[in-house]
């Protein structure tokens, strides 16, 4: 005889059928949720998640204070697709950058961070079984967003090629194979996602590289989603090129930008999508049926910021020049430190991050709780728990299919106060001694 289990009366209160919608299956795991929690639990020097630990420029903080004290309308709903002063200045500013007129009310959608712009884009354009080409390594949210939209991610990796027999030492050494890329396009391909400057690698795509991608987009009639949140952060003379400015690309590109990254105020969550009206209107439909409005005061402050930057563009007072200059010093400092302790950095041409090859390190990762995880996850967790230094494992930025081939890199964020970088340096030196 079998003893029947006592019925679990708790379950009677919960629905007998499946609670959650299928669209969220398989996308519940999130690296940021896990690693932010871990970094918070241990007292760490945090070079993990990408946000500055220094203040935004004072003029932008002032702009927010001014907006907060600026009368009733600052605290009530503004226009759904973007606060008029903001879309107007974005149109003016980026119109000048790309060299043609951008319609403030047709070609721009303001969103809750670039993250929501990505969401609106995928939801608006990707249907069940559409394919979306994603270049690896990629900012992790592209994969679950494509999945949630019912699409299929098709991955093509950047690969390090050694220059003149030496090691691949900069992000410029990581390239796409044109043939391999071309082979990924087929009649089901709806879009390709590019991110330049790239997170986590820091690659800044050259014009020729973007031309190869553009040619394929035009040939196969594919939309290009260009995530350019780090557009101002290029180093060593690398130039940021907007793929939307290449011939034939404006009408098929959605370019995504971030107020948070532009003004070192990631907590404001003001982003935007800029593109041809016929495409942006679909993003607006998603937006109006999901969040509808973004916070007014933050948009007003970002508008003020862009107004100032429009006037100072190209001059030494421009924050968009000062910030990369400041970060360049930090980038070099961290790279030197990592090299000196045997952690081979790949020097980024742009962005917030630097990845480092950990394969030469011999560490006893004796932690049973991480046994089944990729090597870099285990290493990062060990580094947090044992050394008090937080980083992010780079295999998180690869597709499930390719993760196992890229388990030997970890990502550092160098957009931190010098004191934070010094503290990290201390930890690393002590450890290497």
């Amino acid at each position, binding site marked *: 005889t079998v003893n029947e289990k006592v019925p679990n009366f708790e379950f009677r209160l919960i629905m007998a059928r499946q609670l959650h919608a299928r669209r969220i299956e398989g996308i519940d795991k999130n690296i940021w949720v896990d690693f932010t929690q871990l970094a918070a639990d241990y007292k760490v020097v945090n070079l993990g998640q990408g946000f*500055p630990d220094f203040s935004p420029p004072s003029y932008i903080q002032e702009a927010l204070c001014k907006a907060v004290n600026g009368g009733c309308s600052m605290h009530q709903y503004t226009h759904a697709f973007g606060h008029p002063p903001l879309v107007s200045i974005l149109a003016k500013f980026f119109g000048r950058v790309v060299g043609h007129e951008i319609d403030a009310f047709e070609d721009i959608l303001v969103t809750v961070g670039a993250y929501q712009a990505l969401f609106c884009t995928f939801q608006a354009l990707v249907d069940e079984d559409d394919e979306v080409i994603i270049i690896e390594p990629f900012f992790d949210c592209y994969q679950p967003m494509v999945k949630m939209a019912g699409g299929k991610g098709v991955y093509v990796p950047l690969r390090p090629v050694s220059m003149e027999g030496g090691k691949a030492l900069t992000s410029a050494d990581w390239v796409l194979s044109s043939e391999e890329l071309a082979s990924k396009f087929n009649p089901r391909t709806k879009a390709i996602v590019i991110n330049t400057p790239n997170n986590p690698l820091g690659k800044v795509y050259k014009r020729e590289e973007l031309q190869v991608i553009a040619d394929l987009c035009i040939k196969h009639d594919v939309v290009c989603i260009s995530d350019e949140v780090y557009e101002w952060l290029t180093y060593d003379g690398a130039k940021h090129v907007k793929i939307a400015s290449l011939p034939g690309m404006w009408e098929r590109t959605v370019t995504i930008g971030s107020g948070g990254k532009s003004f070192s105020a990631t907590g404001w969550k003001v982003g935007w999508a800029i593109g041809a009206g016929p495409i942006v209107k679909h993003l607006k439909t998603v937006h109006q049926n999901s969040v509808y409005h*973004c*916070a007014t005061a933050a948009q007003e402050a970002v508008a003020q910021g862009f107004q100032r930057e429009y006037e100072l563009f190209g001059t030494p007072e421009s924050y968009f020049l000062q910030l990369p200059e400041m970060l360049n010093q930090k980038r070099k400092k961290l790279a030197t430190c990592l090299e000196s302790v045997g952690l081979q950095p790949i020097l980024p041409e742009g962005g917030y991050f630097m990845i480092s090859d950990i394969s030469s390190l011999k560490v006893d990762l004796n932690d049973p709780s991480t046994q089944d995880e990729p090597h870099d996850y285990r290493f990062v967790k060990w580094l947090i728990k044992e050394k008090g230094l937080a980083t992010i494992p780079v295999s998180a930025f690869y597709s499930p299919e390719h993760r196992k081939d890229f388990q030997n890199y970890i990502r550092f964020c160098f957009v931190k106060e010098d004191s934070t970088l010094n503290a990290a340096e201390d930890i690393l030196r002590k450890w290497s001694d």
Partner: protein
Amino acid sequence: MWLELERSRHTHFPLGIHIFLQLNIVGLFFSYMNITRRTLSSACRWININCIRNISYSQCAMTSSRHINSKRIEGLDKNVWVAFTSVAADPTIVNLGQGYPDIPPPAYVKEALANAAAVDKLNQYTRGFGHPSLVKALSQVYGKVYGHQIDPFKEILVTVGGYGSLFSTMQALVEVGDEVIIIEPFFDCYVPMVRMAGATPVLIPLRLRSNKETSSVSSADWVLDPEELASKFTSKTKAIIINTPNNPIGKIFTKGELQTISDLCIKHDTLCISDEVYEWLIYKGHQHIKIATLPGMWDRTITISSAGKTFSVTGWKLGWSIGPEHLIKHLQTVMQNTLYTCPTPLQEAVAQGLLRDYELMGQPECYFSSLAVELEGKRDRMAAILQDVGMSPIIPEGGYFMCVDVTPLNQDLPHMGDDEPYDYKFVKWMIKEKVRKNQQLDATSYLRFKWHTIPFIYLTFV
């Protein structure tokens, strides 16, 4: 005053003998069944303001047939909206925008935001599912309201307004092919959100009690037929959406009414999505009841609230969902794959506001109660004025809005076109005949919206 008809908030009414115009502070809401493009462009001509936006659904040449929208948003762009921008300086133009207060938010809330903005750390990313100090404050406030502990990290999700909570809930819990019951009249976004989730909206109207005369009607006189409601539940029903206090009618569902709904939810094993953004705006003699507190309901209910409506800061776009972990965790999954986190300084400021009012809960100085008292005076004033001019307002028990029956005015409008609902024609007639011509507008002709504004704005029309 300037004219700005905005899309955002309009509600659907059951067609019937009584024609209602929902009055809203800066917007006229009108039912718009079958509004065509031709009608919209006609409205443009009549109103004759600078249209800086051309509403055209398909005029832009599509560069490629492949760049078409996904199926999930098919037909959802046509939620009718007419966007006219104000010719701001023109004094003959009447502001008919969307629903938000034009009285300032309480000073301590604004100060809290200014203070938060000055703290470096608070300008950077915070916890995705809700800033810790905010979810802890919410846990305190609602723990008291619900009468049981609420886990700040597992049973609360902070979202971009009540709107964002509705979206997260639908995307998380509503499956393609499901049915979702919606009570009419309803806040307009429910239907497109249900459709975007691939489900079917099943509508059931509130109806005026049959023994009621149209003078002195209250929102309490608008009720559901229990049998009719029961008949809407099928094996495909995944959820029912309720909104209490209701937008636009202002109905506050009684305990008995909520019990009827919850009995059906339990019997048919469905979820309940309870939109309670106006939960504090309860007028004398009425009580707001949370359906999640009824037996058997906590485990199957998501309750949605709004900082914007609580603190008169709609432009902050912060809201929250409260519910059991086994439901909230799915909303959190949606959140981490849609916008990840809400703005930090705003969340910190709302936390400070909540903590201040938590200490004062139950006392007259608490903003949760003092706002309701303030608005009640305006509600009564507006109702009296409308009654004076021969209209029949439905006195709302709660919320921001007041609906008005204009049939007693007996305005015949054959010249306003014949393929539109009467209330839409009435509104356009009003604009054309009473506003546009800049006549001596007296109280009789100007339809006020919600009274959540300084009444003198209304009077300057005279």
